[in-house]
């Protein structure tokens, strides 16, 4: 049998993903160890896990180097790759938002020429061009994006907001929400056709786990 290749984002998302693969009976012992290996194999189930940078997961899946992968909706929106996005896994929840100083709240449209600092140039451009019908100047940064409006590099930022603590501590607020973000199960377009049996086994298993969690969660809230 052919190996099924699975691309996982290194770090937080991978840790949460492991639980899903464990649930459907894949051997994830080696994934749990904090190893430096980039390829981890489950010989029994003929599965190979690749550990890659979060932003690269959609690339591996689009080219077919990986049959399936787990990636954040943020990277999927930014990369806009041609692939199947089959399941919302629920974890890694946060929002993609336009943020800026408090005095801009409700007054974002009053700035005619905006400079937008972001790690997500495509998402920023698309949101302003399509949703708000305006051209902006995108300033691509690699981290600590919150700094940009504070030092006059940009008026606003487009970034992920999880708890909003970093924003608050730097005197920034969410001005507009762009999208809800969470981890997604993605599938290569050809693999979906030719490996449908194994891939559907994974999708169905994941879905079952999600349903169980939902029921458990609903049960807890009743108490």
């Amino acid at each position, binding site marked *: 049998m052919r190996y099924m290749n699975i691309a996982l984002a290194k770090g937080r998302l991978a840790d949460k993903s492991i639980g899903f693969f464990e649930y459907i009976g894949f051997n994830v012992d080696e994934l749990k160890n904090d190893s430096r290996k980039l390829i981890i194999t489950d010989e029994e189930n003929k599965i190979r896990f690749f550990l890659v940078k979060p932003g690269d997961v959609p690339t591996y899946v689009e080219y077919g180097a990986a049959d399936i992968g787990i990636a954040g909706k943020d990277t999927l929106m930014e990369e806009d790759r041609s692939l199947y996005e089959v399941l919302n896994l629920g974890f890694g929840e946060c929002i993609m938002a336009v943020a800026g100083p408090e005095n801009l709240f409700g007054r974002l449209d009053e700035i005619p020429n905006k400079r937008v600092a972001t790690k997500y140039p495509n998402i920023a451009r698309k949101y302003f061009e399509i949703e708000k019908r305006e051209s902006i100047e995108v300033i691509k940064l690699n981290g600590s994006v919150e700094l940009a409006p504070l030092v006059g590099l940009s008026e606003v930022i487009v970034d992920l907001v999880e708890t909003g603590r970093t924003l608050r501590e730097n005197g920034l607020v969410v001005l507009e929400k762009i999208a809800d973000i969470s981890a997604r199960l993605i599938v290569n377009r050809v693999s*979906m*056709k030719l490996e449908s049996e194994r891939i559907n086994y994974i999708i169905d298993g994941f879905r079952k786990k999600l349903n169980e969690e939902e029921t458990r969660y609903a049960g807890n809230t009743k108490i």
Partner: protein
Amino acid sequence: MSKRNIYTPDGVRDILNDECYAKRNLEQKIRELFRKGGYRELETSSIEFYDVFSNDIGLVSQESMFKFFDQQGRILVLKPDATIPAARVAATKYTLQDFPLRLSYIGNTFRYNESGGGKQREFTVAGVEIMGVAAPDADAEVIAMAAETIRCGGLENFQIDIGQINFFKGLMEESGLPEADIENLRILIDRKDFIGIEELVRAHRLDSDISKLILSLPKPIGNIDTLDRIQSMTRNAKSLEALENLHQVLDILDDYGLSKYISIDLGMVYDMTFYTGIIFKGYTYDLGFPILRGGRYDSLVGKFGRDMPATGFSLGVNMLMTAMEKQGLLTEKITIDTAVTYTPEGRKTAFQLCSELRKQGLVVEMDINNCSTGDFKKYAVSRGIGGFLNILDENRIEVHNVKTGEVVLTTIDSLLENGGVGRKS
């Protein structure tokens, strides 16, 4: 400025040696297949007016074309697609007696960001178009040609998914969804985003049969029974007609003996402006992209001034090669059957002998370096040539077997009677 004279630009590459040899052989096999099916090959120009590809139906996206200007300032493009020029030709260069018209092509096209070439920007496409026939038999023939084209590469593990775009169009007309939501739904179905589809369907409170049908679109359809069940739930005439048409094509393909390669996918809605009926894609293992795509496009030729039905497919030759390589089917190599060196007295004879051996079908390399016998032997070994001839004069020839080191003295006449040297046994 750094000099760029030793590099090739992004997305293009040099195809050399055995790869080029195998590619030409493959193209030749495909060409023979097309010719035997009665298709006329055409070679449209590499440069066309931008307008050909970007009229009101937005055939090829502006961003994906290589553009430049002619001396009058008009926009030109490098051919981004082979079907559209074929449609232009069918509408303008043929007389009515020529129809129905079978056309074929094998040639290079150019696009930025094209997954059809496995992300290459210059890629060879091979395909056929049937112009002027609306019958399902034409769609089936085109799909059969597509399957045979994949088989030209020796591939047996492949799948062709067939859909009918009017099924979705009919459902949308029946649903009464606003245009913007139809486009959103199309994108969601194309991405198999089950959750998104469900949310959209729920938000519009659609009738339960239509909802079920829409939700079934992204799921694969295993067999004819599932198709029949879908048919029994369908109400609108356009969708029913689409299913009937799909049935006919599948029946014909069954008689072609191709059923084992065929699967049904009603969720193929990737291009609603171009395709108007049957739509299909071909897949094979070890390749992340579809290897071919095609379908019926009855409204295209009319854009060039002569309305007519049309159907066709286009296959990525480079991608077929990649699949062949990964499946261990790319085995053809350049071979030299024999080499010829000579003394000054034997030169004239050497040329005559060479041309005689080549006429017999052998690949013969001539010494062009005035090598000594020893050096020529080393050369033959390095090139993997099994044997060589040393022409001593008008009649006498030394036959050197490189592997055994054996040297036999013979004459031209007896050599030619034995049918050459170094021929693979």
